[in-house]
């Protein structure tokens, strides 16, 4: 472990993995909060405001974690990958710049009003602030996905003296994989938050907190999940076909498809073996992969042998299956839940338990999905343009290792603290009707700001 490349990759991966957990929550949750708020405005039913005040606390916590880990990212481009900006800075710079300028300040400034401003501004301004925060989080996703997609399917540039120069900003931003990736990620965020809301609400119901507010939130979560999951499966499939067109080596590794051939089986499970270039203990559906990817049972798909450079097979194979597996589970649980809600108006006890267990399932799918796509781009940092190894820092490995250890410990503590606090907030909310006014979270109600005059 004395290689700065592998240590820098682990460090960056650790940071970005930890970071993505929180934007995934805030992007989706911001829109759900707007939904709660609009429902309240329309019905004036206190249960919707109850939903809002409970979930806005989790939003604030997630947002804070997103901000501080995001600051880390802006520094690590320079500390870990100086070659990245040197080579493609003319493309990446403006995209990152627009994210900060158009999105970060918008979210961060109106967040204060959204969290603490209920007493200080009119209801309409507060609704507007909620909308602007939601809009800001999605706009931020737009810019960062544009850049990430460009790293997978670069377009709209030319190389002059080893540096990328933009020829068309439209082609850079709306590069071939960008629309697919953006839709896939926004849906993933929606699903993550749908299951978090459903899971925490189910937890509260199981603890006997059977109040309209909790039922409304549970219903919102389950119906949202049931609505989004089929769209997500469709969008994921479209994204896969897009990847087959632009990054075929990634698909070959995801499917553990070693030799170019027709009538390719779909490997459901197995152990990819890079020594024998085959899969041990494989459970296969004959012709399945050909059917999925070419829509023809005998369609030819390029295998790993067709590519001089290809990503490692096993991590992609497993990460992809974890993502798809969680997705299938989400489909079953959310549709079963919807069916029960529709037929009986309530969710049965065993399913409530299952939904609670799936509170953070979105995180698993999102991280597995990102690992699939990011490891799938290796050995390149920017597909076909810049290799990861050529962008790495000159900082000594010992220093990278030291700081990596520090970060890993901190992240482990924080993730445990975060999950514990989310459940703790839920238990606090269960403790009777006092919760509305006592409200000792944040500074919102503890401290009000009083005009001087």
């Amino acid at each position, binding site marked *: 472990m004395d290689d700065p490349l592998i240590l820098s990759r682990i460090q960056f991966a650790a940071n970005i993995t930890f970071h993505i957990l929180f934007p995934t929550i805030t992007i989706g949750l911001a829109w759900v909060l707007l939904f709660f708020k609009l429902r309240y405005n329309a019905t004036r039913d206190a249960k919707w405001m109850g939903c809002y005040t409970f979930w806005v606390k989790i939003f604030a916590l997630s947002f804070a974690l997103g901000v501080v880990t995001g600051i880390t990212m*802006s*520094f690590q481009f320079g500390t870990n990958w100086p070659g990245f900006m040197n080579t493609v800075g003319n493309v990446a*710079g403006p995209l990152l*710049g627009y994210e900060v300028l158009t999105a970060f300040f*918008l979210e961060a400034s*109106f967040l204060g*009003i959204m969290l603490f401003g209920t007493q200080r501004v009119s209801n309409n301004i507060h609704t507007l602030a909620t909308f602007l925060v939601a809009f800001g989080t999605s706009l931020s996703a737009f810019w960062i996905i544009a850049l990430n997609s460009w790293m997978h399917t670069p377009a709209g540039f030319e190389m002059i003296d080893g540096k990328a120069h933009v020829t068309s900003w439209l082609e850079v931003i709306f590069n071939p994989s960008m629309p697919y990736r953006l839709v896939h990620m926004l849906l993933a965020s929606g699903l993550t938050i749908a299951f978090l809301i459903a899971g925490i609400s189910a937890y509260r119901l199981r603890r006997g907190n059977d109040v309209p507010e909790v039922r409304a939130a549970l219903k919102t979560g389950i119906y949202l999940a049931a609505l989004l999951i089929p769209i997500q499966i469709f969008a994921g499939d479209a994204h896969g076909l897009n990847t087959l067109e632009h990054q075929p080596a990634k698909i070959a590794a995801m499917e553990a498809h070693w030799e170019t051939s027709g009538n390719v089986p779909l490997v459901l499970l197995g152990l990819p073996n890079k020594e024998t270039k085959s899969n041990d203990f494989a459970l296969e559906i004959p012709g399945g992969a050909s059917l999925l990817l070419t829509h023809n049972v005998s369609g030819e798909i390029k295998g790993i042998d067709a590519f001089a450079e290809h990503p490692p097979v096993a991590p992609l194979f497993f990460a992809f299956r974890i993502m798809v597996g969680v997705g299938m589970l989400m489909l079953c649980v959310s549709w079963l839940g919807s069916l029960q809600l529709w037929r009986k108006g309530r969710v049965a006890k065993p399913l409530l338990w299952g939904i609670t267990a799936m509170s953070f399932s979105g995180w698993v799918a999102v991280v597995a999905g990102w690992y699939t796509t990011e490891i799938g781009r290796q050995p390149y940092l920017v597909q076909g343009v810049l290799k990861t190894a050529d962008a790495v820092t000159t900082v000594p490995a010992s220093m990278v290792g030291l700081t990596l250890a520090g970060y890993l410990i901190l992240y482990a503590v924080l993730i445990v603290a975060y999950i514990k606090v989310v459940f703790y907030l839920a238990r606090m909310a269960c403790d009777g009707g006092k919760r509305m006014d006592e409200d000792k979270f*944040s500074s919102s109600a503890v401290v*009000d700001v009083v005009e001087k005059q």
Partner: protein
Amino acid sequence: MEASFYLPIIFVGLMGLSMLLYAVLDGFDLGVGMLISRADAAERETMIASIGPFWDANETWLVLGIGILLIAFPLAHGIILQALYLPVMIMLLGLIMRGVAFDFRAKARAEHKERWDRTFCIGSAVASIAQGFMLGQFIIGFSYSAIGIAFSFLIGFSVCMGYMLIGSGWLIWKTEGNLQLRAIRWARRALRGTGVGIVAVSMATPILSPDIFHKWFSFPNIIGLAPIPLMTVALFVAMEVLLKRLPRKDDHWSWLPFALTAGMYVLCFNGLAFSFFPMIVPGQMTIWQGASAPEALWVILFGVILVLPMILGYTYFSYRVFSGKVRDLRYD
């Protein structure tokens, strides 16, 4: 004039502006973070409430400042951040600790609150010292010799004092009663610390950096530069006199310590800018050598011109919404 000549100047100016706004805005909340170690439980609630609506947006100025360095001067970003690798990582750990502690403290179990408060305070101090340390390293052109490290820690100390001064100024402005009185005392102490720091730094800098010595003490620079130290001294005297007389009846002038401290920050920034312009990496690289291609800079500048006024507008709006004194309702 060539775009490749003036665009880098515009961007280094924008970067300076972001860093200055960061130092003033996040400076006060980092300062308040360090000061909570001296406050009792009730005062802590008020102090933390006073920065609650703002700190997220305040830290965004750092992202913008570093972002401009990254996108407008990518070569310099790589050199500077690799040279400052360890202090950067430590600063980030500090910022993460304080940011999460801020939100956890109010949501976690009551018996854990003390621990999160300590994390908040330590994180604020670590981030402040690391920022000063980085500034020190930048001034002497990145040297990890014993003297270089000592000098950098000296700047780290000065930055801490400066943040506590502006943090106290913020509290004097936003609080009342006993806490305000204590904040005035904290401000007086921090003012002395800041003064010692600035004098020591101003003496050590030209000794350690021959370039700066030459810039400061050659004719006619010395005449053009003289107003900066003179005005800084004037602000210190005004602050000392003012703090002795606060609080006034009807809370007059309570905003002034904050404003005077911000004035000192502006002067220090001007001093730094004058000392280094046009170098983006001292002794190694000018802003023109380190800049991105003009076509990329135009694209960003277009966005900046369009969006920066809006950002300033809603930042102002947010501070207006939360204007006036902060109070702890539970005790009323």
